[in-house]
């Protein structure tokens, strides 16, 4: 356990810190810190979790200030495993998921938690409840009715359960129950001995973000092993991440057209996604980029042939994309189904700790590529797009803007790549030695938003704790809030406009 006396340690995305250097605060002091960050406009809590040590727990939290680009790590301890803590969720609502997770995984009691419910029903949950025993919020009224949807949905999508409390057609409350996809990934990260197994697990956290999570994993391991990767590899990783973003955003615009019955737009955007994922496949053999991100090197170096093909593809893509996007956003029938539907406010997003697209469509400039850049984003600065209306329209329009921006940005990355393409790329490492008693945290901005992987090593350099945070962990609350006072028939378009991850949440 730590003996540090200073009250704060600053870190940099992807660089490990010795556990001994992380200050251990009293719970009261920690509470103050959480409160202070919660009140600071540009700040949020990136991760907060418990790690079992000796006869108790050490809790690690990382707070980010997006504007000053600072990352602060603090911790606090519980010596007695039976002890209880006062829940911070009442004052800092974005802590609700963190505290529910720790209660579920370790049996830690968070007193006065306003929403003390299971989160994902892991196989070894301490509450012993089955997923069918979730305690839904209820209203005893003969005037209201409930609608339950899922876990299996109408389309070819992942499972989750949605419980609506309605007054006629109007939704008063939506509760989202997740956990159906739980595969025990964080435990497998500890149990699978070799690096390749962990790498493949990271790519499978959510397969639609194989690059985003793969990269968060690789950076985390490289930081813990003290490996510095070449500027060329960094740029190639960012190229891959932006391609992933363009592909999924385009597919999402297709799906949003489907949900407002604009079949033409649905087909055309759908067809436009294909050349992007096929390009990724022609680079690394997989349409989702699985196999491309490996620790410290790459089996698939970017080259001049790939470069000229990509530049040609981007030119062709943007021309076709702009015509269909102009048409879609011009259509009255689309406008009426997007505009002022499912609005959430900046204040709400700050309260639930929204990240990524969900923050940026509601007036919050929050983007890891800009605030805490790693890989190619350190070399080529990125300036985020921010919209303010917080409705379905903002979520659709932000996708359009981000696609346009990513295409320009890709051209800049490629330009920069030309300067360093002579650097020889390493082959991926098969095993690495990690620093002992270290803490590391790695963030990437996947297409959904802020991904955070964090690990702690013991005195032998073995990983004793692996924590994954997909942006959906925060953002699901946004969908629940967006549905309030909407007609229940507006659910599909809202759900699609958020397009959150079930498996990324459930792990």
């Amino acid at each position, binding site marked *: 356990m730590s003996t540090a006396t200073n009250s704060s340690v600053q870190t940099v995305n992807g660089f490990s810190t010795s556990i001994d250097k992380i200050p251990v605060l009293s719970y009261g002091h920690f509470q103050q810190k959480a409160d202070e960050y919660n009140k600071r406009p540009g700040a949020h809590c990136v991760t907060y979790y418990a790690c079992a040590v000796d006869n108790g727990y050490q809790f690690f939290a990382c707070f980010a200030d997006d504007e000053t680009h600072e990352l602060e790590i603090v911790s606090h301890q519980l010596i007695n495993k039976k002890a209880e803590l006062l829940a911070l969720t009442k004052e800092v609502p974005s802590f609700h998921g963190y505290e529910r997770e720790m209660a579920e995984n370790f049996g830690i009691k968070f007193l006065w938690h306003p929403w003390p419910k299971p989160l994902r029903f892991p*196989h070894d949950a301490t509450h012993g409840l089955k997923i069918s025993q979730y305690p839904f919020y209820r209203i005893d009224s003969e005037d209201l009715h409930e609608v339950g949807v899922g876990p*299996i949905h109408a389309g070819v999508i992942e499972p989750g359960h949605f419980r609506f409390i309605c007054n006629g057609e109007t939704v008063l409350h939506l509760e989202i129950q997740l956990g159906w*996809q739980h595969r*025990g990934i964080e435990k497998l990260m500890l149990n699978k001995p070799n690096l390749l197994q962990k790498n493949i697990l990271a790519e499978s956290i959510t*397969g639609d973000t194989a690059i985003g999570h793969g990269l968060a994993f690789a950076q985390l391991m490289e930081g813990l092993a003290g490996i510095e990767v070449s500027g060329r590899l960094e740029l190639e990783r960012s190229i891959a991440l932006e391609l992933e973003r363009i592909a999924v955003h385009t597919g999402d615009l297709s799906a949003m057209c489907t949900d407002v019955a604009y079949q033409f737009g649905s087909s055309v955007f759908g*067809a436009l996604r294909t050349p992007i994922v096929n390009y990724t496949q022609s680079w690394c053999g997989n*349409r989702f980029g699985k196999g491309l991100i490996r620790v410290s090197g790459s089996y698939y170096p970017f080259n001049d042939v790939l470069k000229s093909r990509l530049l040609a593809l981007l030119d062709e893509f943007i021309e076709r994309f702009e*015509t269909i996007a102009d*048409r879609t956003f011009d259509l009255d029938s689309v406008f009426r189904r997007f505009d002022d539907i499912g609005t959430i406010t900046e204040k709400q997003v700050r309260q639930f700790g929204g990240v990524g697209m969900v923050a940026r469509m509601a007036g919050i400039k929050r983007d890891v590529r800009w605030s805490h850049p790693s890989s190619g984003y350190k070399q080529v600065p990125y300036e985020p797009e921010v919209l303010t209306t917080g409705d379905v329209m903002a979520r659709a329009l932000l996708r359009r803007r981000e696609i346009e921006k990513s295409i320009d940005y890709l051209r800049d990355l490629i330009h920069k790549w030309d300067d360093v393409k002579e650097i020889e790329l390493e082959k*991926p490492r098969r095993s690495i030695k990690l620093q002992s008693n270290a803490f590391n945290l790695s963030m990437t901005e996947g297409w959904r938003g802020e991904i955070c992987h964090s690990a702690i090593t013991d005195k032998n350099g073995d990983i004793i704790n692996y924590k994954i945070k997909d942006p959906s962990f925060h953002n699901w609350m946004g969908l629940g809030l967006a549905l309030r006072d909407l007609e229940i028939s507006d659910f599909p378009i809202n759900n699609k406009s958020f397009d959150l991850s079930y498996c990324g949440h459930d792990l």
Partner: protein
Amino acid sequence: MLSELKILDQHGKQFIPDIRKAEIPMPFRGLPIINESTVDGNELKSFCPVGAISAEPVSIDLGKCVFCGDCAHAFPNKIKFTNDHKIAANTREALIVKEGSDQPIQLNPDKVREEIKGIFGGSLKLRQVSAGGDNSAEMELGACGNVNFDMGRFGIEFVASPRHADGVVVTGPISKNMAGALRICFDAIPEPKLFILAGTDAISGGIFTDSPALDRSILDKHKVDLYVPGNPPHPLTFVNGILDLIRSK
């Protein structure tokens, strides 16, 4: 209207004319070829992250393989992944690729159940259930119906209700939390019905094989009609596999 015409003109024909003959360019990782050169079989075996490789003789089980391709990078003179995407089969043994073999993976018409033979040839409605899937297989199954792959041309479609379906397509390693819902869904499909596993996670558990968070007991009770390997399975693997199955005589 004019802008729609312009868009149509810009896009041209998007569909793949002949799904049966379509090819995927390299470096797509489809059917691996293992030659008979001598290597340290145990080293090769220990290299595989999911235990898909066996030694003496060397073989790769495509039902376990996550197609990372790392074995081929480590042993380039022994293993090569080809772009042959037709790797779906109706028996588990057919997915095991042995050293020295250059045979494609084929569906065995004799093993197709009599009660399903021939009856779904013109129309097949499927219910998809993701049970711990990572959303890549789900997206590829969704892509099977898009304007490029357009499996609707063969009368194959995903439907919302199991009551309207002729079978279920499972993705994911079957999480404990979804096992009950999957069972209820499968039971709700009228007989005769198909049971299809799409993706390595569904076929064997893939990288999640030893996770205590899985419940794969449904596989003990029902015969699997089609295994579609891949991580995720490519739309061409899925569509061709299904066509082989429903058109077998």
